């Protein structure tokens, strides 16, 4: 229902109990441990147990898990993460599972696999290089410069080859060039040149784009080496297959490794907490935040199990804000996922979750306004909740979308939206008197769009006024009576008076004869605004100046309310695109011979799925935005820091 009140506490105890107390605290997960500040009355020393083994195991199981995951049996998507109790998880670690041996096997298998793959890559590179020199019928280590001649192996662009040959001949008699292989635009050649013209020949070769290639010095000919490479490659490939089999074999241990990782990660977390503790030779002290709600229970449990332990409330340090933990009833809990998107309120602010819940879901439904889509959304989310193994924290969004689907069905029922069908296209049993049964508004025809727009704006007015009312109520709770009256309730009165004046003068809803009354009420509001809004200023002119300026705030409210018109645009958009998908499918059915029906069904399935996904995304985002920008700004600032309890955090498994 609210932002939970937090107490800063100090737990004092005997060091002999430390291990067990930390385990208990972590198991309950109710305390956020804080660093103890310097300047305590008596000298305290750090309590740390150096244990690098834990870090080692966490890092290496993580490595093994990442290595084995691609080879292990895939868990079906609905099975989620391995789920077990923390006791049986700890049992796995203490029991027969020899994780150290498995880690070692993984490490050596990975090392071998890497070496094999590197060797294979090296062989492939060499093979590619040698393939062009297959016609050299001498051992490669015999290619050496002689006393009088220099030998170059290299490639030259095929187009330049003849020119190079001619140029070499021109250079002198003691040159030769032999083509070894030609492939596309590259020609591979052996050039022998007398050392007499060494300098000129170098220039010439580089001018002709001759690029020297270095070949490995082998005691065999190129074809021999290539044959050797082929066998070596085959061997290596066999090895790599074996390595993968080894990974698959090790992959059977994946689940156990995941359990081991998480259990040791808890211990790692405990180590981190230990770093924040202080103590004397025999005692220790730990400080942190606990929700008031949980304090009694943990106090009792600690005192019962470890009688020499004291837990007491202490004053937070100056400038230290309590962390924020939200607590909501089952019905509004899923909407915390919306609040979290924005961030937490401050400790002295109200939790907006229960207030935004109704608005959010109604806006979401109106942005979709299609009973068919609502049903699809509900069924998909219901099945996910029912058959997927999901950790509880991540079901919030799914629950929210499920209820969003239900409300969308209701909205679709009243607005006559069924997969974008028109009255003429719909089956007869859904129709009564030229409209869908239960339909009260056709948003796409006649004055429908206008009524829908007005509905959206009315919802906007209601939400803005409620936002202001929450602001006033909260200020009264904080005993800021004057601010509540002048900054919240006066504005509500003023806005209502203006709306009343508008309605009365146009004769809509309120009879025209009341126009005069509302005019005076509005003018009274203006006067009150001018007189009160500048009350915090010092000089008299500034008081009035700010008072007059505050009337400009009306523009802001007008903008806020008009912003709700997006609900109508999105709601109408969903229906029209759905209608278009039906038309395209019908066209396909009519125009394509024989397989038209197949194409039509594919168009319908793909088209409606795409429309549902995109429209639901848009509906969610824009409903959320209306909360964050238009609603929250009326009563909260936000920027609180979330509560991060010391608990058993899991990465690969779920704890029940």
């Amino acid at each position: 229902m609210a932002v939970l009140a937090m107490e800063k506490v100090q737990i004092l105890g005997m060091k002999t109990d430390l291990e067990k107390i930390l385990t208990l605290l972590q198991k309950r997960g109710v305390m956020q441990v804080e660093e103890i500040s310097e300047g305590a009355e008596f000298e305290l020393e750090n309590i740390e147990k150096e244990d690098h083994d834990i870090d080692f195991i966490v890092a290496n199981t993580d490595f093994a898990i990442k290595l084995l995951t691609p080879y292990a049996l895939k868990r079906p998507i609905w099975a989620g993460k391995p789920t077990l109790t923390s006791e049986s998880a700890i049992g796995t670690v203490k029991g027969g599972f020899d994780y150290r041996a498995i880690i070692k096997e993984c490490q050596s298998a990975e090392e071998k696999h890497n070496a094999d793959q590197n060797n294979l890559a090296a062989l492939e590179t060499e093979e590619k290089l040698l393939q062009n020199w297959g016609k050299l019928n001498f051992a490669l280590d015999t290619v050496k410069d002689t006393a009088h001649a220099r030998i170059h192996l290299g490639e030259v662009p095929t187009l330049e080859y003849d020119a190079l040959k001619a140029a070499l001949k021109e250079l002198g008699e003691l040159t030769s060039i032999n083509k070894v292989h030609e492939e596309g635009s590259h020609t591979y050649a052996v050039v022998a040149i007398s050392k007499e013209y060494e300098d000129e020949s170098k220039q010439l070769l580089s001018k002709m784009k001759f690029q020297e290639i270095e070949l490995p010095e082998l005691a065999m000919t190129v074809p021999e080496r290539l044959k050797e490479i082929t066998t070596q490659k085959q061997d290596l490939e066999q090895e790599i297959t074996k390595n993968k089999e080894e990974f698959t074999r090790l992959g059977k241990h994946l689940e156990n490794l995941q359990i081991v990782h998480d259990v040791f990660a808890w211990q790692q977390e405990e180590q981190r907490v230990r770093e924040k503790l202080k103590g004397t030779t025999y005692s220790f002290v730990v400080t942190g935040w606990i929700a008031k709600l949980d304090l009694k229970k943990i106090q009792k449990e600690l005192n019962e199990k470890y009688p020499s332990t004291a837990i007491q409330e202490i004053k937070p340090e100056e400038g230290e804000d309590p962390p924020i933990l939200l607590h909501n009833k089952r019905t509004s809990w899923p909407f915390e996922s919306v609040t979290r998107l924005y961030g937490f309120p401050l400790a002295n602010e109200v939790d907006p979750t229960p207030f935004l819940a109704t608005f959010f879901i109604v806006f979401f439904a109106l942005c979709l306004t299609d009973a068919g889509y609502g049903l699809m959304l509900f069924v998909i989310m219901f099945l996910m909740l029912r058959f997927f193994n999901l950790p509880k924290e991540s079901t919030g969004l799914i629950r929210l979308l499920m209820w969003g689907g239900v409300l969308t069905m209701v909205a679709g029922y009243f607005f006559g939206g069924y997969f974008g069908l028109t009255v003429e296209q719909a089956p007869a049993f859904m129709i009564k008197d030229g409209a869908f049964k239960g339909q009260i508004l056709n948003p796409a025809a006649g004055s429908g769009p206008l009524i829908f727009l007005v509905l959206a704006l009315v919802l906007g007015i209601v939400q803005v006024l409620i936002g202001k009312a929450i602001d006033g109520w909260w200020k009264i709770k904080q005993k800021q009576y004057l601010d509540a009256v002048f900054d919240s309730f006066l504005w509500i009165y003023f806005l209502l008076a203006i709306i009343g004046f508008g309605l009365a003068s146009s004769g809509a809803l309120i009879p025209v004869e009341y126009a005069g009354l509302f005019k005076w009420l509005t003018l009274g509001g203006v006067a009150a605004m001018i007189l009160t809004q500048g009350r915090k200023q010092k000089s008299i002119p500034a008081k009035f100046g700010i008072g007059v300026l505050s009337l400009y705030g009306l523009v802001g409210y007008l903008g806020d309310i008009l912003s709700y018109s997006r609900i109508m645009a999105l709601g109408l958009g969903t229906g029209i695109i759905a209608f278009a998908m039906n038309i395209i499918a019908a066209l396909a059915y009519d125009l394509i011979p024989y397989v038209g029906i197949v194409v039509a069904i594919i168009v319908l399935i793909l088209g409606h799925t795409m429309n549902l996904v995109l429209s639901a995304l848009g509906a969610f985002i824009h409903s959320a935005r209306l909360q964050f920008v238009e609603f929250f700004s009326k009563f909260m600032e936000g920027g609180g820091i979330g509560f991060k309890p010391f608990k058993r955090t899991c990465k690969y498994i779920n704890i029940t």
Partner: protein
Amino acid sequence: MSAVAIAIAGATISVFLGGAGSAVGVGLAGLSGAGVISEKPELFGKVLLIQALPGTQGIYGFLGGLLVIFKLGLFSGEVAAISMETGWLLFFACLPVAITGLVSGIYQGKVAAAGLHAVAKDQANVGKAVIMAAMVETYAVIGLLITLLLWAFIEV
């Protein structure tokens, strides 16, 4: 130029400008997104979500085009006989969604791309990055709103 041609010009401009805005926007976000997943491939789902955001303008533009096609009765095969004035009315009714779609699509892409950098640093920023990009989309929605209202009140 016939009245129908003028109305169809409105439809095509709407689809074309909205689509162009989205193409640029999704492209910009995609460039950043590819950079993010090269470092953190596990963020693909979140990156895809943000990359898809500037895509709505294309849909709105498409919707604007469809509205004109419905109004003219092109699907039913009997093209409505409309006056020059109605042709121009339909043409102008398309402009809000078309132009807001073009400009907001491009800028939403830029905001989405910047948001992806925030997500690369900390994936808890996804929600905030999405909402910031959605702030730009507001103006495309407003463009769509006016196009829808004008369309609803143009008699054929």
